[in-house]
């Protein structure tokens, strides 16, 4: 027992090679082996959505995957969303400006979930936003600020990607499609 394997994973654009136990979850790999503790663990059985990451551009619960399953794949965590160390992504700015977070525990999962959602659906209705975040539990905002932030982010992203404005605001290098 205690079988191990060497895996190679690209996280937020950086390539990591590590030897891991085969039973290690992807969430624990990201947090404990790579030190990227922005990915939070709430329930560890796929209910709360706090550990949501993007796997090859698609949202997934990292507590419901094994690290060995990510071998050869690309991952984006909350640390990789901002375009640079001193600049927030428009989605993050919208969260800050609309009171989209209080304690911040659910925020990494909300951001990664909404990053994928707004890419698929750039002009959503409030109802569509609520359905999109239905797999993410927040215990303090009452969701209203988060929904406001998501709708505001859609507007910001639409205006920043209008012709001639340059940077569309997506962390394209880090979000393979």
């Amino acid at each position, binding site marked *: 027992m205690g079988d191990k394997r060497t895996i190679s994973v690209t996280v937020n654009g950086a390539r990591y090679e590590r030897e891991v136990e085969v039973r290690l979850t992807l969430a624990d790999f990201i947090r404990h082996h790579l030190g990227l503790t922005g990915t939070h663990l709430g329930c560890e059985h796929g209910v709360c959505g706090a550990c949501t990451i993007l796997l090859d551009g698609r949202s*997934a619960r990292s507590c419901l995957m094994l690290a060995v399953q990510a071998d050869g794949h690309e991952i984006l965590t909350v640390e990789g969303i901002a375009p640079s160390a001193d600049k927030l992504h428009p989605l993050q700015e919208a969260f800050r400006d609309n009171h989209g977070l209080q304690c911040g525990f659910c925020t990494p999962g909300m951001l990664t979930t909404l990053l994928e959602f707004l890419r698929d659906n750039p002009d959503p209705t409030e109802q569509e936003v609520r359905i999109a975040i*239905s797999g993410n539990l927040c215990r303090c905002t009452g969701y209203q600020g988060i929904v406001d932030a998501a709708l505001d982010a859609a507007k910001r992203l639409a205006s920043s990607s209008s012709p001639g404005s340059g940077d569309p605001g997506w962390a394209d290098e880090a979000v393979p499609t």
Partner: protein
Amino acid sequence: MKPPPFHYHDPRTLADAVELLSRLDNAKLLAGGQSLMPMLNMRFVLPDHVVDLNRVDGLSYIRESDGALAIGAMTRQRELEFSDLVRARLPLLHEAILQVGHRQTRNRGTIGGSLAHLDPAAELVSIAAAYDAVVTVTGPHGARDIAFAEFPAAYMTPAIEPHEILTAVRIPSWPQGHGHAFIEFSRRHGDFAIVSAAALLQADSAGRVARASLTLGGLGAAPVRMREVEHALIGEPPGDELFRNLCESCRSLEAVDDIHASAGYRQHLAAVLARRALVKAAERLAGGAAPRSVH
């Protein structure tokens, strides 16, 4: 919460996966992992071997042939959700898939995993029952088909041998112009249904019901096809009063009593949701054969 120790295998071909399964004791197949991974994390299951199907070639596809869609077991629920073919040919499946978990779980979850896991409240299990799907399993001695009516052997136990792998499901489509509806009651969007109802209706040229399928999920160990209601609908013009009267029989179905709902409440939901599903399916019949309403 950590999974217990196990040996991990990630075969690249179906033949290798079948070979591993026939050789290894206490092995568990890992598909999308949206049910098995929580069960491992909580140590409800303690396999000696996990055989991961995610790198097996050729198990993910949606193809049309002979009036049915053949769907590979490892086809992600997301692929079903966004498939134009599914939307056109299996609108009932399309309607139900939107209620299966959340975007994050549909990105990983597979149709084969959901059917093999056979949760009594799972939407895809009800849909397979509603369409009279045929499941293909492959073992050391080749492939065989199982009609979905014969598929549930017991609570969360499909009629698959330990060394067989569910590889595909074939879902027959209904003719253009048929009506469909999937309705469920759950505490929150994306939760498993406490009770679900799936209805398919086809009308003849005079607007009378020519064919009907009515399935209730979440009541017992497996979805229930309401055969007597289906037969009683044949030859009748669709109408609220007819549906209401026929669906009263759903109140006498056996139902489980648990933390989510009492048996009596489930039986009530069964009658109400079955009627609503039939009404909605009738409204969607081509030609606008709107059901006669009761006043």
